[in-house]
Structures are given as C-alpha cells and as structure tokens.
C-alpha cells in the first residue's frame, strides 16, 4: 500500500497526460471549418475553379457497412475525375437516423446531401416547410436533367412543398405504382384447390384459410401483424387514401372529385372488415397473440404462414410466369417456398408514394450546385452506382451475366440499401436467384403503369398537423388502446366498436377531420382544382 500511496501523484499526472493526448487526437480529426460564415453568404461564394476538390457529405441510414472505406476510395476516384469533388458517406443506423437528422436540422449544422422520406419520423414535408432543405427546383433542371426526366411530372407533384421541389426522387427499381393484395403459399393453394384467381376481397380468402386451418395443424393460416395493419395501413384496398399519417382519422375516397374527408373508422368498409377478421380470429385463422406481436420474422422464416398481405403488382394474373420466381416473404431462399400473388386493387399512386425515398440538399450546404451535380452523377454513372451498392467486381461480387451477380460472402455489403443513394430504376443488378427476363418484364409493366396509373386526388397536398397537435396525441393514445385488438379480431366488435368510436370522438377526431378538410379546401382553391 505504502509505495502505491507515494506514487499517487504521478499516477494522477499520468492520467492527465493521457487525457491530454486524447484531447489532441480528438480535435485533430476535426475538419477545418469556420463556423462564422453567415448563411446568406454561402451561396454568394462563386465556385472557383481551384485545384482543390470540394468535399460533399452525404448522410444516409443503413446497418453498419463493412469495408466502406475501401469502396469509398474507389468511388472517389470516379467522382473526382467527373465533377472534381469527393464524397464522404456518413452511415448512421436506422433507429437513430431520423432523430439525428432532425437534431442536425434544428441545430443548423451544415450537410450537403441526405436521404429522407415521408415515413418513420423522417419528416420530409415538415422539414422542407421549416426551411431545412434547399429549394432545388431550378438546380435540378440545370445540373440534373436526366434525374428530372426519368420521373413522370405527375410524380414530381408529390414532393412539392409550396410549389417548389426540395428533394430529388430516388425513382426506385419497383417504380411508384403499387397495388395491394395477398400472397398465398402455392403448395396449399394446389392442395386445397383454391380458386385464387377470383379472389378480390378478404372475404374471398375465408374458404382457403378454413381448409388450411383444418388440414395443417402447424400452420398459421393468416398473418396479422400490427406493423402492417390490414385496415389502417392499407387504405387503397378499401378504395381510399390517407391524408397525412395512415392511422389518424381522416381519409378520402380516391374517386371522390370533391375530396371529402371522413373518419375511416365509421365507414361500412371498416365494419365489414371487423366482421371478417373477428370471424377469422374466432375460427383460429389468426394467431392468438397477433395484436401484440411485434416480430413477425420468426414465423415467416419458419415457413409457418399460409397467407399474408402483399404489394403485388404485377401479380400472377397479369404475368403467370412470375410463379416460377416468387417466394413467400422471408422464407429461406434455399427452401424455395413458392407463393402465388393476387392483387385486389388497380395500380394506384398514393399521395405519400413519391416521397418514399428522396435525396435532399441541406439549406446550409456550401456547395449546392456541386451537390446536385453529384445527385446526377449517382443517378447516371452506373459504374459508380454499382460500386457503392454492391462493391468491387471480382472482390465483393461475381458477375453471372450482364445484369446478374452473385455476392461473395463476408465481403462488402450495402445491405440492399441502394435505393437511398439514387435512382435504382432499371439500373439494378439482380442476385443469382432472380430470373432476370421475368423481372425485367414485370418492371417494364410497372414503369408503364407509373405513367397511366390513377393518382391520388390529394397528390401534392401536405397536411400541417400543428393546429391539432393535442388532438392527434390523444387520438394516438386511443388508437394504441383499441385499434390492434379490434383489427386483429381479438375482441368482439359488437362490444368494443361503439366504445372505440366514442373514445375517438372524445379525443378530438372530429377536430382533426375538420382541420384536414379546411386545409384541403384551401389547397384546392389555391391550385384551382
């Protein structure tokens, strides 16, 4: 003990030195930025043709990516040569990303590019109207013509805020037009001779589910999950579209020219839905704990699901040859669990679909023109896009054919998040389990539908929830209490439905609907609809 006590001061001193070195290390990695630049000065700085390439930061969400540094080095060679800039890709994990971005925005921290959307707290519309992003309407025309021209004009309407475009649409490989429907396990459909082609509503599935229930003891006939509620998250199945958040009261009918907002929970469609699902639950087609089950993956991976909702467009009526390559969601690929897909609806573009994946330019970006040039480069330079999305050929993946690759295990992997980088529209490389010809054909169908599909009557309308914030919070609480137990059929609607509606009204559902109506009317008047 004695010697230690004597050495105490030197131990402390050592610690202080250590901490100082850490301080040194920590601050030296700070980029040399001068935070004193005023916001209005930034755009005045003309792009000097200097030797120094500009560094652009691009924030996106992803699971951790291995070997990112190696890939970025190769990518930066291309970017430097093409537009004299370098790209710093900042990857944040999914769960923290929305919060991080919102913090960066509220603190005014500069960023050049970021991925965003109108779902999962990403708040594209709110942030755009707050002035967090740069208005890129003219910059797109000037610096990113190809990016602009790939997307139909009707779809650009869906990302405008006050008539200006704030985000470049990452036109995805799956296009925009979607349809909702179901996915059925093929072996059961064949076994029980179910006439799947004529199924158009949930009710039509009842005989199939019943046969599966009676004949297959270990199988769950229908997957209900509160992550994708079969009513509240799928307005299109009932010929409706949501205004703002899906679950909050106040939907519209897609063929309604007057755009009347109503409470979707008071419609006949909802009552019918409840009857059907209550019946399914009582008969045991739905898991007993479906209302509270958060993790649906185990059941899907264990091939226990006979039927579930899907977004099938085209389905197997449109394209019978799809049968050879559509599998049940998340069933192990090597088991080849074939599925049959059938859509219930016509191709339709909901109001929130264009804003699913966007790249925005930060309002405080020092190089907005370069940033938009980079958007264009990512969207047009296939070699660059493939490099970041899949890695280096030969090292991270093997080419099987022109459009097909095989990923090499344990190497660089972007976790199939290429849709955050840019437009993957017709630029994807497919993995070895895909039938490329069929895939291309079905995509062509989707892209054609994108030009002709019905568009939501509220496309381009953005609901500002600020005036009814309290009511929305109260309604949210009521929904959490009732919605999933009712929608999964766990409780008797005869007993609880009236109570649910009553509680919604007390929580202020009618105020929300009135507010939505008011804003839509103003928007209609302003846009001459």
């Amino acid at each position, binding site marked *: 003990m004695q010697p230690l*006590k004597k050495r*105490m*001061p030197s131990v*402390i001193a050592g*610690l202080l030195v*250590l*901490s100082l070195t*850490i*301080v040194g*290390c*920590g*601050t030296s*990695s*700070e980029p040399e930025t001068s*935070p004193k630049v005023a916001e209005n000065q930034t755009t005045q700085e003309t792009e000097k043709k200097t030797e120094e390439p500009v560094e652009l930061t691009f924030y996106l969400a992803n*699971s*951790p*990516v*291995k070997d*990112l540094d190696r890939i970025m080095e190769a990518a930066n060679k291309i970017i430097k040569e093409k537009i004299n800039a370098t790209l710093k890709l*900042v990857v*944040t*994990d*999914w*769960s*923290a990303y929305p919060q*991080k971005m919102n*913090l*960066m925005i*509220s*603190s*005014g*921290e500069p960023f050049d590019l970021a991925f965003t*959307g109108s*779902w*999962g707290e990403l708040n594209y519309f709110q942030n755009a109207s707050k002035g967090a992003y740069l208005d890129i309407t003219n910059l797109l025309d000037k610096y990113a013509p190809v990016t602009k021209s790939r997307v139909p004009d009707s779809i650009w309407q869906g990302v405008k805020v006050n008539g200006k475009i704030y985000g470049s649409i990452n036109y*995805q*490989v*799956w296009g925009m037009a*979607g349809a909702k429907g179901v996915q059925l396990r093929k072996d059961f459909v064949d076994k029980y001779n179910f006439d799947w082609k004529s199924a158009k509503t949930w009710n039509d599935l009842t005989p199939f589910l019943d046969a599966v229930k009676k004949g297959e003891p270990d199988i769950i006939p229908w997957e209900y999950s509160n*992550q*994708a509620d079969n009513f509240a998250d*799928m307005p299109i199945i009932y010929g409706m579209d949501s205004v703002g958040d899906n679950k909050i009261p106040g939907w519209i009918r897609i063929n309604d020219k007057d755009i009347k907002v109503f409470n979707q929970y008071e419609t006949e469609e909802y009552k019918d839905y409840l009857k059907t699902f209550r019946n399914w639950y009582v008969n045991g087609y739905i898991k007993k704990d479906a209302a509270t089950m*958060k*993790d*649906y*993956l*185990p059941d899907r991976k*264990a091939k226990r699901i006979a039927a579930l909702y899907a*977004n099938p467009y085209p389905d197997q009526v449109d394209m019978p040859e799809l049968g050879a390559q559509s599998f049940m*969601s*998340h069933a192990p690929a090597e088991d080849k669990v074939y599925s049959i897909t059938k859509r219930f609806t016509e191709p339709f573009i909901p109001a929130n679909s264009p804003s699913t*994946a966007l790249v925005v330019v930060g309002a405080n970006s020092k190089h907005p023109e370069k940033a938009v040039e980079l958007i264009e480069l990512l969207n047009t330079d296939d070699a660059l896009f493939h490099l970041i999305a899949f890695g280096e050929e030969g090292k991270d993946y093997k080419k099987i054919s022109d459009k097909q690759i095989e990923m090499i295990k*344990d190497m660089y*992997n972007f*976790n*199939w*998040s290429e*849709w955050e980088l840019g437009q*993957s529209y017709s630029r994807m490389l497919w993995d070895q389990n895909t039938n490329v010809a069929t895939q291309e054909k079905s995509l062509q169908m989707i892209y054609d539908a994108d030009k002709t599909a019905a568009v939501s009557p509220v496309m381009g309308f953005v609901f500002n929830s600020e005036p009814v914030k309290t009511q929305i919070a109260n309604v949210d609480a009521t929904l959490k209490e009732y919605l999933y137990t009712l929608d999964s059929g766990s409780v008797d609607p005869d007993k609880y439905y009236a109570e649910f509606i009553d509680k919604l009204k007390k929580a202020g559902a009618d105020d929300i609907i009135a507010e939505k109506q008011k804003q839509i009317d103003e928007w209609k008047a302003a846009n001459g609809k």
Partner: protein
Amino acid sequence: MVKSLKLKGEGVISKLLINLMFIVYSAMCLIPVLLVLSISLTNEKSLLTDGYHLFPKEFSLIGYQYAFSGTTSILNAYKITILVTAVGSILHLLVTSMMSYAISRNEVRYRNQVAFLVFFTILFNGGLAPYYILVTKYLHLKDSLLILIIALLVSPVHVLIMRNFFKALPDSIIESARIDGSGEFMTYFRIVLPLSTPVLATIGLFISIAYWNDWFTSALFIENNKLYTLQYLLQSLMTNIQYLMSNEQASKTIEKSIGMLPGESARMAATMLSIGPIILMYPVLQRYFVKGLTLGAVKA
C-alpha cells in the same frame, strides 16, 4: 447451510426459508442470461422450428462467427469501449470526488450555492437540441473520442452521494493532518481518498457500467466507424430490425433489407459478447456496496 442445520429447531426453518428465497431469486436472475447464452449457441433453423431451450438443441457457433466477421470489427469496438470505460471511470471518480470534497468542507464559502447549482441540473436540463448544438457547434467535439468521455464526466447524483460520505468523515482527522503541515491536496489524496474506498468503489461500479452501456452518445455524435463503441453496434443490430419492420410498407426494397439483417442467434451472440468484461466488475466491487450506499446514515 450445513452448519445452520445444527442450530436449534426454530432457527432452521427460517434460515431454510431465507436461503430458499434467495436461491429462487438468484435462479430468476440467472435463467434469462443462460437462455440468451443458449440461443446464441443454437443453430438458427432449430430456433425457428423448436423454439427456445435452456440447452441448445442443435449446437452451432454461427452466431459468434457472424458477430466477428460481421459488418464492422467488433474487436475494434471492444478496444474503444474498454479505453473509454477505463479512462472515463477514473476521470469521473477524480473530478466528482474533488468537487464533492470541496462542497462537503465547512470552511468553503458559498459551498451551498455551488451545491445547489449542481443539483439544479438533476431537475432541469436544456433538452436534447441545445445539448447537441453545444457539443457540435461550440465545443466541436463531434466525431471525437473525447465526447464519449466528457458526456458522462460528472453526474450530480454521484456528487450528492459522495458529498454525504465525505461529510461523515470526522473533522478531527483533517484538522490533525493540517496541524502536521499537510496541504489541501496532500490531505485529499493521502487521507480522504484512502478513507473513502467504499464510496469510490460503489460510484466506480456505477459509472463504469454507465460508460460501458452508453450507446446514445455514439449515436448522436460519432460518424467515423473506427470510433464505434460496442453498445452502439449492438444497438444498431437490435433496433434496425425493429425500425425497418415497422416501416416495411414504406418501400418494397425494405423487405429485402430486412432479409439481410442477422438472425436471432447472431443478435444474442452480440449480446453475450457485450456483457462479457463488465460482468466481472460485480464480484470484485460487490463487497463495498453496502457501506458505500448508506447516504450519510450513522455507520457503526
């Protein structure tokens, strides 16, 4: 146990009961950990078909293989975490104890006002956005190791506990040190700290676990993957799945991304790896607990 059975009749039953209670309680604490361990050593397919068991039905190390070959190097995250925990805990003890000692001494003027300022922060804080702005815009500590340490450097609750402990030290010891010619620092390092091992050990345990488990600071301020901490990696493994699942309908491609995420056994393997070293802190420091936590109560 055996000895206690030799005691007189009445004591035996109560002793048995007490022991039994603690055996049951310990089992309740241990079984979940064992279950996680077992899941991490089970083949993913067998998990899906047979469910969870306390002993792996089909033994496999795939989960650990994934964790080590996975996306960013776990070993590097270990290094960062251990460094931050070690340096952070020692600095935390030093800074916190100095502050507590100062406001526990009667001869320090305005000590109560200073103490009030410290405790005020327990009840009120600026909120997340100002905190973020302070760190990034004024301190420029984004993406540095230092922020991981500074974020937890002083905790007002710990100051409170320590101050009460120091107050309980007899003044006469400190006075006699002063008469013998010891300066303030000498007194503090040579007399006060050695007398305070219980409270130092207790707070040391608290704070080292807090440093070890801190993922939020990384999530906010760390962008360089070489500085990721273990818990942040683990957190992203766990919560990415949740987040993507709840937004699956947002995009057809999300379904594909979900398929890329690790399975149950890989996640549990990461969990096991992350509790590894810190779990050893408990047996070492546990005996100081009782003594350290009595907040200014009279000690025998």
